[in-house]
């Protein structure tokens, strides 16, 4: 990889692109016929989670919070799950987990050449942990304008960890892989795991 003829910065770029290729190319397709169906699949996923009490957001609120941008003639769509709530106001409607963490997301996509599937163009899935005032966010940049350049830099799919200017490489995921993690997978207060980690370290 790092051949003798390559200068170090070219080599770094080439490794970064290889990494990008592994985590983000090709992007996973969304297994859904159309945006409306994807909307309903996501709403139903969240309603089921609410029924299981994994979410304290009620089914009625989920239908209020998860919506599509009214369709235009073009194929692109925008699907939103609650608004950004930038100031982390706990009183705003939100998709909230049983442990008090809350999240919002949006997905940008378009029709895939393959019928009955949708193509991801970008996404933004942010979790906020209110007790510790921390957040993390998975972003998939949209490959337009300057973003194209960033794709080339290997930063299209990344994770923000508690800071807007910290970007860590992250795998591109489907909306349901992200929801699996946001609703079920992420366990910030798994004390047992922390303790074991501590013992191992000492």
């Amino acid at each position: 990889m790092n051949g003798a003829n390559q200068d170090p910065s070219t080599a770094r770029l080439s490794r970064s692109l290889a990494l990008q290729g592994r985590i983000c190319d090709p992007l996973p397709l969304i297994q859904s016929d159309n945006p409306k169906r994807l909307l309903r699949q996501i709403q139903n996923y969240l309603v089921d989670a609410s029924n299981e009490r994994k979410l304290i957001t009620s089914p009625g609120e989920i239908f209020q919070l998860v919506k599509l941008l009214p369709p235009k003639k073009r194929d692109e769509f925008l699907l939103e799950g609650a608004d950004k709530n930038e100031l982390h106001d706990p009183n705003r409607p939100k998709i909230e987990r049983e442990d008090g963490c809350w999240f919002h997301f949006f997905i940008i996509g378009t029709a895939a050449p393959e019928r009955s599937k949708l193509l991801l163009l970008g996404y933004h899935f942010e979790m906020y942990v209110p007790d510790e005032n921390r957040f993390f966010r998975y972003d998939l940049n949209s490959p337009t304008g300057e973003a194209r350049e960033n794709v080339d830099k290997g930063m299209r799919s990344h994770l923000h960890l508690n800071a807007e200017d910290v970007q860590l490489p992250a795998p591109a995921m489907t909306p349901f892989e992200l929801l699996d993690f946001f609703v079920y997978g992420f366990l910030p207060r798994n004390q047992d795991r922390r303790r074991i980690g501590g013992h191992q370290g000492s």
Partner: protein
Amino acid sequence: MELSPTSVIALVGGIGSGKTTALLVAMKQLIQAEDTRAVYVDVGQFHDLQRIETGVIVAAVGLALCKLVDKSARDSLNNELQRAIQSFRQWAEPQEEWIPYDELALRRMQKEEEDSFVRVKEPGKLTLPNKLSDELESQRKNFAMIREAYASAYLIGFIDGLDRLASIEQFQEAIDEDLRFLQAEGLGLVVTAPLLSLFGKYRTALSRFEHIIVVHPVDISGPRGENEFLCEVLKTRDPDGVLSSEAREILARDSGGVLRDLLALAKAAARNAYMLGRDTVTGPDVLVASDQLARTLFLGLGDDDLKVLQRIRKQGSFVTTSDRDLALLMTRRVLEYPQADKPPRFAVHPTMLPLLHLAVDSP
């Protein structure tokens, strides 16, 4: 009925007031007596009431008896009785006929490729090929045998569904000969009758009944703990305690004492609670349900109807001067509560009150 098991009683009440429940409760009590048996039929389940005519009630009661005899003594039926049952069933059971099945759109949607005709047992085609009334008398012997096989002593027929008949003439036509037939066979009868038969010119419809029992909505403003009764009904239907006590109180109040509305409101309130992510149904869930029911009750009302409702709301007075006024009673927008030693009290269905208030307050 216990004292006079061959009498003929009309059970009259508004929509959803609990007539069927009353019938079933009475039936349960009467069959405790050793020498009394009972048979329940909902004529509407058996027959298209639109085409009700002489013979239908006898056919319905007879078929129910055949079923009961079959069930209780299938192996010990003698040949004569078997023949009687067969002959009665042949006369009384709905006929089968070919009907066109031409739903192209339906087939397209379901991707089904049935034949263009299906054979069905069509409700309401009871009268084909012969009119039941033509052979009613000839079935008397069969009926008597079947009746005797099921109940050698007293037999009481609980006949439900006729209260749905909007036409009093139809009701009269349906009951006239059939009740005579059944009485002659020694049956006591309790028959649900349309609420309309209590009013004005329609009263003659009840002339052939020995007793008339009116099932009114439960008056929760009454002094005898009626509110508790409705709350108890809810409690028995809610073994898991999903309804809060506040919800039960509001349900009892907003139902106006109409049992079906009580249950419909409870169901709607439970749906509302679920959508709000609550395990328990609370007062606000019921209030939303009440508003939903009110909006259905307002459907189709004209300005004159609204004026009548406002007058009842403010003054409690209701004089039925037209069929349109009566329709408000028949469709339970107006509820009637009897009062001891006083004229009845009329009230607007309680779910409608907030919107009627708003109508007055808004400019």
